[in-house]
């Protein structure tokens, strides 16, 4: 048991930490926070700075002296990025919804020991955790399914993630069996039990897994590169990637020797980073309280 005293938690049998020690810890934590926050802030500041200041500062600035939206204007020129943003949002929303439906139902089935084909399905799932399909077999499958150039090719291949299913399954297994049995005695069918009992009790876990899925859909670019021939259908990460990493792909001077233009300026690259993290940063606070509970799944037994 713990006894709260103002903002300090004192565990019985232990003396509270001394003030200098607490101050030292605070400083340390502050430094840690700054280590995370300053680069983040610097990226945002760089994206708003003009070329002259970025060049003078050697790449990154801490405060834009003459703020300009030039970098954002350059990226959004032509409408490709805004279109890609829509694609990304669509793929992420639809993908996450379908992934949650399939993962929750699969995990629930696997969490009930007597369910049909329980063992083999679990083994297949675990197998996919150890051995992922190669690029070419995946491509051949997508092609045979007629999904090349289709948005489904971005959603279906990563719709069931074995790790997420295992996390959900563990959570479902921790729900007292008596609850399920009681519902069954009351005449509830499996679907009703899942909808009315298991899901409401598992909001935290589902939120976490949903976030995992959403982040992975949001960040994915490789599938789009393989399966989407028309750049008009690319998601945002793939479009933005062409701004940031393209020139690093080959040796010094070869890009320029090939006739390609210089890589985009530092401000533009920073603006891209900001654009690509904004949606996640916006969504995160709403999920955070579930996340805190959710990530503790399995941490404390009993």
């Amino acid at each position: 048991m713990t006894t709260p005293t103002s903002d300090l938690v004192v565990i019985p049998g232990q003396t509270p930490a001394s003030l200098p020690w607490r101050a030292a810890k605070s400083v340390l934590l502050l430094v840690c926070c700054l280590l995370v926050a300053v680069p983040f802030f610097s990226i945002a500041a760089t994206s708003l700075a003009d070329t002259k200041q970025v060049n003078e500062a050697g790449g990154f600035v801490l405060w834009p002296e003459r703020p300009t939206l030039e970098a954002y204007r350059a990226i959004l020129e032509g409408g490709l990025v805004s279109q890609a943003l829509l694609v990304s949002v669509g793929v992420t929303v639809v993908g996450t919804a379908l992934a949650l439906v399939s993962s929750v139902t699969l995990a629930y089935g696997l969490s009930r020991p007597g369910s049909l084909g329980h063992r083999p399905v679990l083994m297949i799932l675990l197998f996919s955790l150890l051995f992922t399909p190669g690029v070419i077999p995946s491509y051949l499958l997508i092609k045979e399914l007629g999904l090349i150039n289709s948005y489904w090719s971005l959603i279906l291949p990563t719709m069931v993630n074995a790790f997420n299913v295992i996390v959900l399954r563990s959570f479902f297994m921790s729900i007292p069996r008596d609850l399920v049995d009681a519902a069954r005695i009351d005449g509830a069918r499996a679907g009703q039990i899942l909808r009315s009992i298991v899901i409401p009790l598992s909001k935290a876990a589902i939120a976490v897994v949903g976030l995992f899925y959403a982040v992975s859909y949001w960040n994915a670019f490789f599938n789009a590169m393989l399966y989407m021939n028309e750049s008009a259908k690319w998601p945002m990460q793939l479009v933005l990637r062409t701004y940031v990493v393209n020139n690093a792909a080959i040796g010094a001077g070869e890009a320029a020797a090939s006739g390609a233009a210089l890589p985009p300026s530092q401000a533009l690259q920073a603006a891209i980073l900001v654009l690509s993290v904004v949606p996640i940063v916006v969504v995160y606070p709403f999920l955070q309280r579930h996340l805190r509970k959710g990530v503790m799944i399995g941490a404390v037994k009993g």
Partner: protein
Amino acid sequence: MGADVTRRTVLRGSLGAAAGLALAACGDGGPAVPIADNAKVRLPDHVPYQGVKADFPGTPEGVLNGYLHYPASPVTAFPGGPPAAGPPISVMAMTFNPVPPPIGRNTYWQALNRSLGTELRFEITPMGDYPSKVAVIIAGGDLPDAMAVRHEIPQRPAMLNALFEDLSEHLSGPAVREYPYLANIPTAHWRATVYNGGIYGLPMPRANVGSVMFYRADRVRERSLDPDVSDFRAFKQLCTDLTDSRRSRYALGDPVPSLYFVLEMLGVPNQWQESGGRFTSWLEHERLPQGLDAMRQLVTAGLLHPDAFTVTGKFKDWFGSGQIAIHYDGNAGWNDFYRRYAQDTPGFAIDGMLAPGFDGGPGTHWAGLSSFAMLAFKKAPRERIRQLLRACNALAAPFGTDAYKLRKYGVEGVDHTLSGTDPLLTPTGTVETTLPTIFVTDAPISLYFPEIPDVVRTQHDFQKRAVDVLVRNPVEGMYSETDVTVGGPLMVRMQDELKAVMQGRKPLSSWSDTLRTWRKEGGDRIRAEYERYWESINP
């Protein structure tokens, strides 16, 4: 970087397997063609385009044509109307640039299609992902009508034989004259398109001069220094005079290309040296250790940027912003440095420096790839191939024509505005014209910089000096499977070792062990394959 290389290596392997699968499945590939047949190929005739007079004429040795201004009345490239009318053409090409807006919102792309009379359907892939994309495309058998084929694609001769069209009957010798703008591409650029005793693609011509040791002429002038260094000692002195570490100003950045410059001083070969059919790699050259030692001196003297060994992708910005004053980069970067940095740096000026002899006298200059990649055509009926060639002929229309102006500068009023007779790209034009037509084919590169025409004079002058001491890579146009599959990752390792010696992490004496590793792990096989190839075409 490591992960990247590993992924690429794996993908290369998988491409090999995929190509194998595809080729095995493809019954009409025919038997392998002896290398000797490549010697019998008659390359396309060179018929230089005479329609526009250059302000600074090029030379057959490789100096490019230079132009101060665009002609007031561009020559109509296709007086008979759109040259490639017919069904849409899918083209798979790489890009180094941000992708352009889709065709529905891209005035430039629409105008280009109208001018061709067909729809160019670009399948654009970022350069870093291109090998993986090629792997799956080959494995899946979903070939586009035309595809850029780069030198990192393994089993290339067999792949081309099985899946792509031999264009010899359309392009060899005088046949190319039917496509006058393709005939305008000098013969040397076509060498890398020869496989299986035929011409299997169109070149993407690039400047002979390849790379340039750029220096900030404004900073050199400001300090009243002499950029015409006569030997390594003078170069080192120039670097010292340009370095002011208290103000974070250094002479050099990227260590490996800086080493190349020193090696050019020492007369080390451009990748390979051929003598009587025997090949020597630049890594094995007797003067390489001397070059490493010289670079070590520059590093010890603090003339390289302190982060030079630890960062990638920052060197251009360092050079543009003045943190370093000398920078080895591609020739095409010349205009871009001005476009990017000149407006924020009053007096911004750059020029190219040629390597002097290490101990005085003339040095050398390594030539670049004469063709960045080649465009291969999927096997198709004769008429379809002719339509594709007509489209590519239009995409190779040279400087001075209306087709060139449209291809490079888009639509007037939307993509460019006129300053006098010169087109200047608008922000919309900058975005729309990133459509990778330069990775389909192109006219021979022209020196032209509408923003600051005088720069062309400097560029042309550098070209003239460089071509005099140009050293070509003798294996260009030859094929070594080991070089394709093993050579790339092996070279990355060698560059790490070179950096270790330059930085002082390893002694110079360790280089002989490194070289043994290189020989054992692929170097000797690569050499043997090039020698075999050379013997086959030089019986």
